[in-house]
């Protein structure tokens, strides 16, 4: 249903953030995208939702199709109207507006007031903290609360595809579970989900498929279960197997030392 083929993304005059990346997300799937810092995960999401332009980035090559329709050149609004919602990295809540106003803004494309109110109710039920803080200025929420607001806001438009960029960033273990449950539930109601995560355990826990991106390239695509069992993935992303030496080669630490400053 969502098909990314040979995608190459570039920022400004700099290097390629994504190179020849292909990802296929079947209808009803939960696709997990995992990879290290700066691997290009967020760039992939931005490319799909048409927001690369806000970061001086652009698609150099390749195509993204949704239900057979090419998304190239469509505005973010158009893409959202097609049913693809993107919960961006770093929350991007509207800090000067209240929690309620943020959620209402999330339902901006929903024409029917009744639908909007229902969606609102549903989200507040799911995340009671949002109901509690409905009139608080969103910028004053705690980091985790803001993240939940961002997810809730993404749900407001009742999308067919949800792109979640690090939805559990800064969430407590309990809340991570809640978000995982939410992903399962919306998926069960027919929504296709693409989730980018550093928390690979959680992502691969809810996902049907998984894709590993490294330095802009998709290096591994398989079923989530297969990836969970892959030793490489365990080593790099699941923080697992201590016997294998903490994955020091994956993230070489400097050997420098530091002494106290005196001046």
């Amino acid at each position, binding site marked *: 249903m969502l098909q990314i083929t040979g995608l190459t993304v570039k920022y400004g005059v700099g290097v390629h953030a994504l190179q020849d990346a292909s990802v296929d997300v079947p209808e009803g799937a939960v696709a997990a995208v995992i990879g290290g810092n700066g691997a290009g995960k967020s760039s992939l999401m931005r490319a799909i939702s048409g927001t690369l332009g806000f970061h001086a980035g652009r698609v150099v090559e390749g195509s993204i199709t949704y239900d057979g329709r090419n998304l190239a050149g469509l505005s973010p609004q158009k893409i959202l109207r097609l049913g693809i919602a993107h919960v961006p990295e770093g929350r991007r809540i509207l800090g000067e507006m209240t929690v309620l106003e943020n959620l209402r803004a999330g339902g901006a494309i929903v024409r029917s007031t009744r639908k909007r109110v229902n969606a609102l109710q549903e989200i507040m039920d799911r995340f009671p903290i949002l109901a509690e803080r409905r009139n608080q200025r969103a910028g004053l929420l*705690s980091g985790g609360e803001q993240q939940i607001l961002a997810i809730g806001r993404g749900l407001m438009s009742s999308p067919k595809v949800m792109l979640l960029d690090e939805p559990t960033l800064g969430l407590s273990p309990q809340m991570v579970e809640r978000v995982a449950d939410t992903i399962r539930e919306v998926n069960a109601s027919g929504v296709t989900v693409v989730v980018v995560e550093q928390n690979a355990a959680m992502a691969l826990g809810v996902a049907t498929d998984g894709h590993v991106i490294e330095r802009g390239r998709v290096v591994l695509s398989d079923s989530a279960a297969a990836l969970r069992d892959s030793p490489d993935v365990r080593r790099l992303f699941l923080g697992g197997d201590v016997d294998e030496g903490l994955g020091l080669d994956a993230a070489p630490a400097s050997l420098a030392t*530091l002494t106290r400053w005196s001046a």
Partner: protein
Amino acid sequence: MARSLTLQDVSLRFGGISVLDGVSFTVNPGSIHAVIGPNGAGKSSCFNVISGLYRATAGSVHFGDVDLCRLAPHQIAAQGVGRAFQNIALAPHETVLDNLMVARHRLTRAGMISTALALPSARREAAAHRQRVEEIAIFVGLTDVLRAPAGTLSYGWRKKVELARALATEPDILMLDEPVAGMPAGEKMEIAALIRAIRDALGISVVLVEHDMPMVMSLADHITVLDFGRRIADGTPREVMADFHVIQAYLGTTDAPADELADALNQEVADRA
């Protein structure tokens, strides 16, 4: 230098919301002290009270003999309280190097006039501090990105710059708010090792807020647990782990191999030294 940080019955209210409610704990000199708790528990607010960005409604914060509640944020920084922020707070258009240089503000003197005249004292000062900042950057592993504008780095890199900047204030106590959020497991480990190495090399205290339990359990000497602005537990990792309230409020289930992790960490720190 070895000073303990003590919060005594700190309360904080915003309008009708009680954010902190009689919170007390002590960070012992040279220890790694974790503050954990569910989202919205008041951890960051606690940090904000310590660094003077929020004024406690009641209670006191002492760093050694100094009552931090009486001081403005920049004076608290001058006391050697260094801080990395949960939401990255860098100057995005400036280079990483310049971002780190700001951290030297409290240690340097050059004002508008001596900078404008490029007095020898100002020049010497700038050179010495640049050298130290580069040392710190190497230590944290930022050598490759020193000249890049901070805003163009990916999330994980920016988190590292945050950490390095806090370190560059030459703190006596280093406060880290979720330093490894958004990092892959491998890098988390690296940062954890780094934090331990900092403590060991410099002998300073570290206050750590983190949701990553394996990391907290293996790194912390002492843990304070907050929930709804109240302290619900306080003790060593083992004690806290055993506490029923904590499990209920926060952890749910845990399968973190904490002990093994701790061993591995020790190993790595030994390697670095």
